């Protein structure tokens, strides 16, 4: 494997969890719901996915468990914000705190346990393409799934009627309600999709990326995924670009440390967070302070009767 292939491979590995998490959050936000519980759902996916994979001995059981864990977490959020019209920001924060705690309790018996990285899925012929072949077509199933998700979400939002209805709920929930669309039901489904994606992203971390469980292993990736959605102006294709930009920065930082760059490691470790702020600043100043967010984002909907 050449140096170029190695770097490309690690960038893909670092970007995939961000991409999966962000694309789920994008659907959720397009329906008008801001779920700040990403970090909590993601780490619950990581803990439950790893635990289930160890107990069953099957990675795919782990993946399924992670998705279900993410969805279960998002259901708590849905009950609070949709059922009881609670403040979405505070509910999301509660979900993050709760998830970080609960994942620690669930994962405690599995600290130190090790298992093999999930098997790669080589696509025949395509893997033989020089330079990029191995990196792009010899990946684990998550990577393919992440691209399929981006294409699927783009197609759903831009090309289907259901996607249009979902966007209508996010832009103006009162109008969508007046047209007879079940706003709360649509938002519930969007929240569950976001939760499932967050769980899947967590599973990637504990089953492929590391592959072991350690408490707090998401290390702010859930929050960075939220930032990527803002960076992407709520558009699926730009989420792809954003996730790979952030993944690339993470890897650059690791390679720079490995190459013995004379900068304290803490400064390099702070880079992804600083770049997140910087990118938000650049993107907002280019828009001149204009928000591209769905108009109803973050506002609770209570149907008038």
């Amino acid at each position, binding site marked *: 494997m050449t140096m170029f292939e190695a770097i490309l491979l690690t960038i893909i590995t670092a970007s995939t969890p961000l991409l999966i998490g962000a694309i789920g959050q994008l659907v959720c936000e397009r329906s008008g719901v801001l779920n700040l519980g990403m970090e909590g759902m993601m780490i619950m996916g990581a803990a439950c996915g790893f635990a289930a994979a160890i107990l069953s001995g099957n990675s795919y059981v782990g993946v399924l468990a992670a998705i279900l864990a993410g969805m279960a977490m998002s259901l708590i959020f849905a009950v609070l914000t949709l059922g009881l019209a609670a403040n979405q920001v505070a509910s999301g924060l509660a979900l993050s705190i709760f998830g970080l705690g609960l994942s620690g309790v669930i994962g405690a018996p599995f600290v130190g346990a090790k298992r093999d990285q999930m098997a790669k899925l080589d696509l025949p012929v395509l893997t033989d393409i020089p330079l990029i072949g191995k990196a792009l077509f010899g990946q684990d199933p998550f990577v393919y799934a992440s691209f399929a998700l981006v294409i699927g979400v783009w197609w759903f939002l831009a090309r289907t009627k259901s996607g249009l209805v979902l966007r209508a709920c996010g832009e103006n929930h009162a109008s969508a309600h007046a047209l007879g669309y079940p706003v709360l039901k649509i938002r519930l489904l969007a929240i569950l999709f976001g939760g499932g994606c967050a769980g899947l992203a967590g599973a990637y971390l504990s089953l492929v990326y590391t592959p072991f469980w350690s408490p707090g292993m998401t290390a702010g990736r859930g929050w960075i995924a939220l930032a990527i959605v803002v960076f992407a102006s709520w558009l699926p294709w730009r989420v792809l670009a954003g996730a790979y930009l952030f993944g690339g920065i993470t890897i650059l930082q690791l390679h720079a440390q490995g190459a013995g760059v004379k900068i304290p490691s803490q400064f390099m470790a702070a880079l992804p967070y600083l770049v997140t*702020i910087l990118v938000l600043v650049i993107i907002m100043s280019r828009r001149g302070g204009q928000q591209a967010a769905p108009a109803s984002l973050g506002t609770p909907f209570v149907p008038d009767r």
Partner: protein
Amino acid sequence: MRIVLTRRDDAPAWMALVSPLIAVALTLLSGAVMFALLGLDPLKALGVYFISPISDGWALQELAVKATPLILISVGLSLCYLSNNWNIGAEGQFVMGAIFGGWVAIATHGAANGPWVFPAMMLAGMLGGAALAMIPAILKTRLSVNEILTSLMLVYVAELLLDWLVRGPWRDPKGFNFPQSVMFDKEAQVMRLMADGRINLGTPIAIIVVVIAAIMMARTLKGFEIRLVGAAPRAARFAGFDEKRLTWTVFAISGALAGLAGIIEVSGTMGQLQPSVSPGYGFTAIIVAFLGRLNPIGCLIAGVVLAITFIGGENAQISLRLPLDVTRVFQGMLLFYVLACDAVLNYRIALVRTGGAAA
């Protein structure tokens, strides 16, 4: 069956007081279920969590020490949240206060320092916290950058900065290579209130802050402005209140209070800078603010409640061998229930039987 909410403005006043209590009760109930699932005797476990921290004089002092930072931070956060400014980076502002204040202590270490050192440290700590908090505030008012994300990202940055300082330039040369600064001089440590106790001057400072904040919110124009901007931004604009300047003000106040909490914690209980100076006070204070209904006096009471979970968690780790994360689970559940109970205040809740086609 489904839940139907109808908005109401006539919730009786007593409900506003009772709803946090219901939330605490529901949290205890859920905690009992969780302990039973973990194979523990629920009553015994709850006793360790919630009774042992308030069982004797020493424990009560420890409680005051833990509640102090929570109260200081949450009072500031309440002002932010009331005016719709989502500062969730208090943890970073706490750390920054510890760094700035700690710098004063380290710079004057061993030199001829007098009684001015301690106030200077407190001021530096407040300055450090406020400076970090102003970054999201300025970015929000100038470029409409989401303050939730920026304030949170800065938490990681502040923590890494502290980590670098205590492992690098500020490491105690005589400290056997441990990643920690020199022990602060006696003048640079927060005064203990009792000769052989843990309680220190930080607790009365927190109480004074609560009183000032309560008077400000209830009796001054600034307090009215904060509440109005949050509740009715349009009306506030007509009244001539400057929303952007208010954002700066509340971020600066909450950052300064978090920074003050940070330097009090470092110079009062640790006596030196270490790679980690907080068990998550900045995040827990968010829960304190909501449990206290964004009211300074409420924050005082809620701060004590959450401090109990911290100490209970430490006790449970020792006597029940439970991971410290159980504390976070409790705190998360508490916030869930607080938010759920708020719905009872704002809406009439009815369970409606759905008859097939009804949507």
